[in-house]
């Protein structure tokens, strides 16, 4: 039995997991030194066989998939078996290209045609390239890219997971996720938390762990242990059981030990999330990210189309609150119908409300649809704008929201400038909500998508805590409530600090609500305020976390 080996990553989705490793193979590219085929006709036989292998494996997956996935997989199998594709590859083989390059070339010929057509046709390029990558793997005799098929509960390990890959994972079989890249706020991390699968990112050399090796992971501490000692697995299991028991003993609205109410809300990104979160013990939605609903749309959705989607999102929450963030496109989330062209620094460019200022008709259509859906469902709908920097912007947004008949307007506080002048900015609206992921990115000048800068993006950075404190003080002066809707609200220790700094609501991945509810229930408001002071006295992020962990109530730290 090989010795246990422990490494540390960043825990991004809570819970512990234990199981054999399944490695996600990276996309396969043709080798640079591939020789020209000695016999192009024989090579074409190999290429056709590779394409047939891909078609068959897609059909096998289709047979086991649900209706929607089944149709997509069947159509993709048709692409693999396409005579035109094989013919194009044959021409390239006769022109002296090796089999892998011939497949890649044939795929790109069609990809270029589809991209030129645009819209829905252009979206098929992903499927086409996926077929190409699989066929190249087959012709080279290397593992197919993507998540392999497996039938025992396993820990999925990858360099990084594409959002589509994460979203299609089988929750019953994937007990945990480990990635070598990715970051605290990468979409993989957010989706894993939403799906309730324990996950650790930024784990060094994770992709080098051999397939089948047993691994234990802790999605809170970020600890990953290969060939773990049975006692460690047992200790993790015991702690998980203790945690389950402690969390199950609390329910209902969020409240500190001494009775201060702190609303516990969910972050959601679409109808499916809404239905799932609506059934849970939480007080509503603190962040409904609307752009996720439209990411695949080729043209701006109509008011009627949007109304229908919003109605389906609001319905599961009855009369509970739903805070809607208006379209936050640009930067890492480009939309086909709201693209203002490439920018040198998209994170600092025309995104969020700045995009709405350039394309006000998009915002007006969205607000109109939200107002209709709110009236029809009776939900307590509040609308907030992303990327607000100044009081003028806040006023401009609030006016448009009210003109459309919506009662409550707010702003996200994610730009340090807006945080420092929160009293002026919030004076124009009804509430504020701290987007701590972007606030950390802009405070520390570190790209959220850059995994290597994860340490700088740590929300425990004392500078980030100072900016949050300034924003909360401003909100207090303006007598406006300030919530938090970044991932940090779902960290039970940090949630206590945020409440101590003045946050009156916390919005997070729904799977994190129970542990945050428990954390609040064993601390008084005064204790939270003391933890906030202690955290801000620290010189480093690590020290801030350590100090709070040492001072927090044992009832909480025993289950973390």
């Amino acid at each position, binding site marked *: 039995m090989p010795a246990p080996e422990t490494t540390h990553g960043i825990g991004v989705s809570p819970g512990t997991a234990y199981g054999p490793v399944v490695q996600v193979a990276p996309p396969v590219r043709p080798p640079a030194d591939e020789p020209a085929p000695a016999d192009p006709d024989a090579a074409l036989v190999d290429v056709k066989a590779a394409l047939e292998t891909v078609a068959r494996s897609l059909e096998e997956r289709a047979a086991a998939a649900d209706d929607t996935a089944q149709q997509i997989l069947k*159509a993709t199998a*048709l*692409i693999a078996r*396409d*005579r035109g594709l094989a013919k194009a590859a044959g021409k390239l083989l006769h022109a002296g290209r090796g089999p892998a390059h011939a497949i890649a070339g044939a795929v790109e010929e069609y990809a270029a045609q*589809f991209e030129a057509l645009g819209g*829905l*046709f252009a979206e098929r390029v992903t499927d086409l390239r996926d077929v190409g990558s699989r066929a190249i793997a087959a012709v080279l005799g290397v593992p197919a890219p993507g998540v392999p098929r497996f039938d025992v509960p396993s820990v999925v390990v990858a360099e990084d997971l594409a959002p589509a890959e994460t979203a299609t994972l089988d929750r019953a079989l994937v007990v945990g996720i480990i990635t070598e890249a990715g970051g605290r706020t990468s979409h993989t991390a957010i989706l894993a938390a939403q799906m309730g699968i324990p996950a650790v990112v930024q784990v060094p050399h994770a992709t080098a762990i051999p397939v089948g090796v047993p691994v234990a992971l802790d999605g809170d501490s970020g600890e990953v242990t290969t060939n773990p000692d049975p006692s460690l697995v047992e200790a993790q299991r015991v702690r998980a059981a203790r945690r389950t028991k402690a969390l199950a003993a609390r329910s209902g609205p969020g409240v500190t030990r001494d009775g201060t109410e702190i609303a516990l809300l969910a972050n959601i990104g679409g109808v499916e999330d809404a239905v799932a979160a609506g059934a849970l013990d939480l007080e509503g939605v603190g962040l409904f990210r609307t752009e996720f609903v439209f990411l695949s749309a080729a043209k701006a959705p109509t008011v009627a189309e949007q109304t229908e989607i919003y109605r389906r999102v609001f319905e599961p929450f009855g009369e509970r609150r739903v805070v809607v963030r208006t379209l936050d496109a640009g930067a890492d989330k480009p939309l086909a119908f709201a693209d203002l062209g490439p920018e040198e620094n998209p994170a600092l460019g025309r995104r969020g409300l700045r995009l709405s200022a350039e394309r006000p008709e998009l915002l007006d259509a969205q607000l109109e649809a939200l107002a209709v859906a709110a009236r029809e469902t009776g939900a307590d709908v509040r609308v907030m704008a992303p990327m607000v920097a100044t009081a003028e912007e806040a006023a401009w947004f609030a006016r448009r929201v009210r003109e459309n008949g919506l009662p409550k307007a707010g702003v996200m506080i994610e730009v340090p400038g807006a945080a420092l002048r929160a009293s002026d900015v919030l004076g124009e609206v009804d509430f504020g909500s701290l987007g701590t992921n972007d606030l950390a990115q802009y405070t520390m000048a570190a790209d959220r998508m850059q995994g290597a800068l994860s340490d700088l993006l740590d929300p425990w950075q004392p500078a980030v805590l100072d900016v949050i404190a300034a924003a909360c003080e401003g909100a207090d002066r303006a007598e406006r409530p300030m919530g938090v809707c970044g991932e940090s609200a779902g960290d039970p220790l940090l949630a206590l600090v945020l409440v101590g700094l003045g946050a009156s609501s916390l919005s997070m991945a729904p799977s994190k609500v129970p542990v945050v509810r428990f954390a609040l229930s064993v601390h008084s408001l005064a204790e939270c305020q003391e933890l906030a002071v202690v955290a801000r006295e620290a010189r480093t992020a690590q020290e801030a976390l350590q100090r709070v962990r040492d001072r927090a109530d044992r009832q909480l730290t025993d289950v973390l």
Partner: protein
Amino acid sequence: MATRTVTIASSVGLHARPAALFVEAATNTGLDVEIARPGEDPVDATSILGVMALGAKFGEEVVLTADGDGADDALDSLVALLSRDLDAE
């Protein structure tokens, strides 16, 4: 040689699911069926990539041609298929 002209009734155009259903049906005829935009070069109707690369949208006309025994019947059934909104079914 049998020829038919038909208007695409699928709201998303001849793409994705409608294209897959059409290609499947064309393949099942066992004939050499071709599809083209009026006046343009035809493509193999059993090639999903070729059919999708036509980029035929809702309301646009396409021309189907086929040779051999049963070509007329085969094209009639393909015309009937394209005259329905395949994406809505």
